């Protein structure tokens, strides 16, 4: 599979796959639908909108690159398109908050960063 043009490859985008056969969506990219096995699916770009499912602020990092960013908030966000993703978020986010993604530099890479919607 070609590399996705999303944040995992330095592009300011969150991509997901939508199965043409069973309609399920998946975030971890694969050559098939993990629910029904179909190889027919669309690559879609997410809106970046979602709801906070869980949060954990990292205070103890284990590498020099990540320690420079401490504290940083790791969040799980339920995207409006129906998949869950891990990302960074503002320090004041709470479970249930409606959020929107921008992108930020972290340890030499681009990562999605969620902030509360006004």
């Amino acid at each position, binding site marked *: 599979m070609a590399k996705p043009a999303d944040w995992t490859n330095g592009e300011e985008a969150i991509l997901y796959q939508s199965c043409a056969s069973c309609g399920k969506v998946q975030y971890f990219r694969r050559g098939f639908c993990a629910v029904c096995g179909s190889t027919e699916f669309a690559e879609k770009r997410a809106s970046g909108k979602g709801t906070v499912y869980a*949060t954990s602020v990292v205070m103890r990092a284990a590498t020099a690159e990540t320690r420079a960013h401490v504290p940083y908030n*790791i969040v799980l966000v339920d995207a409006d398109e129906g998949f869950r993703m*891990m990302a960074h978020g503002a320090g004041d986010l709470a479970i249930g908050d409606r959020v929107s993604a921008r992108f930020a530099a972290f340890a030499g890479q681009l990562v999605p960063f969620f902030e509360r919607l006004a």
Partner: protein
Amino acid sequence: MTYITGVGLTSYGKHERLTSLDLMSKAAELAIADAGLKRAEIDGILCGYSTVSPHIMLATVFAEHFGIRPSYAHAVQVGGATGLAMTMLAHHLVDAGVVKNVLVVGGENRLTGQSRDASIVALAQVGHPDYEVPLGPTIPAYYGLVASRYMHEYGVTEADLAEFAVLMRKHALSHPGAQFHKPITVADVLASKPVASPLKLLDCCPVSDGGAAFVVSREPTNAARVKIRGCAQAHTHQHVTAAPALSELGAEISIAKAKAASGVAISDVRYAAVYDSFTITLAMLLEDLGLAKRGEAAARVRSGYFSRHGEMPLNTHGGLLSYGHCGVGGAMAHLVEAHLQMTERAGERQVRDASVVLLHGDGGVLSSHVSMFLERV
């Protein structure tokens, strides 16, 4: 019919200059002697892995080093669930007549063999290489995420979680092999250094050196009569991003299957040995397994229910949180302690009745589960 005929356990903490193979050998020696067997009578070997000394054929490396030529040998890797997964496999291999005496062994110099940072980095790799690891999470952060959600859904507090650390420390105080012997309070846990919210240092198990082993046999080899009644596994996901809802996690699935496989009910259980990598892990698993109602495990700790003289003594050696965690051997210490309790060899830690035991292990981020019932017959 299969029996756990011998157990061996080193102290956990620092073992300067000992390698993973040294620690595995020490534990194996103890377990085989405890079973009253000779090395040559061991015809099967199952071992875990070492993050300090990775090898693609650790079981044969160990067999050669230890001086055994088994007819069945390989390594097993299911993270923290490895010890019980190996025991389950040993049970089925022996039951099927493939081998007579299986040595199950784990050991690692995880504390002195590498830096704590190296351990944290190595363990964080259970995360997704593209979609999680680049975000800089650590194992405490993966469990911190789960904890935040669990506290949100069930009204559990940080003070509730602290109770589990205090209980495990209290139990460790009376085991000379435990890594920690200084008493702690709920206030100490709450005031300990933040690691990954809501988890603080004392909510997390330590990194340790140590080794553990047992022998699973077709026939009793000594006076011990500890029978494996039944066991089961469940694997719902690998990565926390892909975990199901809290009400659909694998512990509930594996315990239901283990109950069906063994005919044992939770009301029959007299002693519990449950995986406790973090306080949240123990709180959730106790509730998933049916040893406490949702959100009520901490109240049961406070009331003494899980204490040595309580109705359901739990991890009387101190668990991963205070006996220590050397990787694969970590949760194997839970089984060693259960065996000592069942055979009434736990000394001052001895509980009143350990005739039926429930063991539960978890690997990854509540990803892989093994539930097992033992009975003294």
